[in-house]
């Protein structure tokens, strides 16, 4: 896992939802941050646009911060294997 990507995603989560980045531990449940499933989908759409990636079709819910980071990381590595995240 690219540490820089991980910090970047956490910053983007914090900015998007107006949350303190300090609250974003790996095992933090997103629901505990007041984020519901539709809100998370909206955030992931923004990630798709910003990072030029596409989420998988999987219906498995993203329950924790690490689930979210893992899904974005997976998409970036599959779809832009050499490109740095800007």
């Amino acid at each position, binding site marked *: 896992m690219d540490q820089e990507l991980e910090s970047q995603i956490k910053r983007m989560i914090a900015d998007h939802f107006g949350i303190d980045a300090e609250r974003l531990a790996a095992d933090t449940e997103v629901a505990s941050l007041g984020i519901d499933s539709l809100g998370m989908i909206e955030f992931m*759409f923004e990630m798709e646009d910003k990072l030029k990636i596409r989420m998988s079709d999987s*219906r*498995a819910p993203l329950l924790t911060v690490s689930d979210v980071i893992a899904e974005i990381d997976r998409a970036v590595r599959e779809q832009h294997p050499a490109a740095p995240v800007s």
Partner: protein
Amino acid sequence: MRGVCVTGLGLVAPNAANVADFGAALAAGCSGVRAITAPFAARLAYNAAGVVVGDPALVVGKPRCAGLDRVVILALAAVREALDDAGLRADPAPLDRAAVYVGTGMGGQGTIEAGFEEYQLRNGERVNPLLVVKGMNNAAAANIAIDYRCHGPNLTFSTACASSALAIGEAARLVEAGHADVAIAGGTEALLTLGMFKAWEAMRTLAIPDPADPSTACKPFAADRTGLVLAEGAAFVVLESLEHARRRGARVHALVGGYAARNDAIHLTRPDVDGQCAAMRSALADAALAPEQIGYINAHGTATIAGDVAETESIRRVFGAHAYRMPVSSTKSMHGHLIGAAGALEFIATVLAVRDGLVAPTINLRQPDPACDLDYVPNVARTCVRIDHALSNSFAFGGSNAVLIASRAEP
């Protein structure tokens, strides 16, 4: 609920063009879900939907269909069958003061999108002058009243997936209270438009169909379910006071045994077990029935990951040990989710359970989910089952929960 009966049934659905065909389709486990072939189909991420069979415009008559959105045409076709069934097209006098209660989630969506294309995408200077009256949400109810000269209360309910269940329940209350002898109640939906597909796709709650067999896309309660399948259609019932029905010698399909309307009041989309339990308990109380007296549940059963688990838990909590002795099936597996018309179509399936002893299956249930462990009547219908009371659930976006109970007409 006392003294309200069902004297007419009518529908147009993805797996049947009328009530008799619907019963046969349920008995055969027949799916009406398929890939759509509209010009925009190539733009869909998940191409599977319940499309109405046949051409309801032919039932209604092409001249009458001019200036009507599809949602109204479907409604008129279903109402025509229901009124024929009730003997009220032949003898329409009782319709003079009839109430018309219609549920719809999106109303004239096709018309609204066509208008949008005209003024937004083609920069048209003017749109179809009928856009307002074609597209308005009350168009179906208004056109029904016009066609059948119904001067009673004319209401349109828009509560997402509970719309038509609420329409039927509220119409039953109206009849029970003596404010109407006859009510035409049900729902209609025609939302298979590009805009609606894209909107639902964005929520990541639509089923991912197997391209080789899209008819299997809707898998309620199955471990491999992936979401709901949108569908169109219309279903209507004629409700009447028992006294009025007997006086005119009408055939009674079933009694409206009970009804409850509740709201979760907690979240716009997330299913709430407490809210669902309260609704079912409230309907049982309205029917003066113990849980053990329910012989069949037509589940809301949309095949979403969260929804099916929540509903299973709700049924367990309300029915206890009886939950495991009672068949629970989702007919959405065969016809898809008709959104605003779902409650009415599924109420008709519930009426067929008490009238004909037909327990519809949940098809596409090949891989059971351990979290959903009730008897969902997997894949094969059961017939000739004696069912005195059956319950139908509709749990909606916006938190509305509507529960209807149908009871056998003869004791």
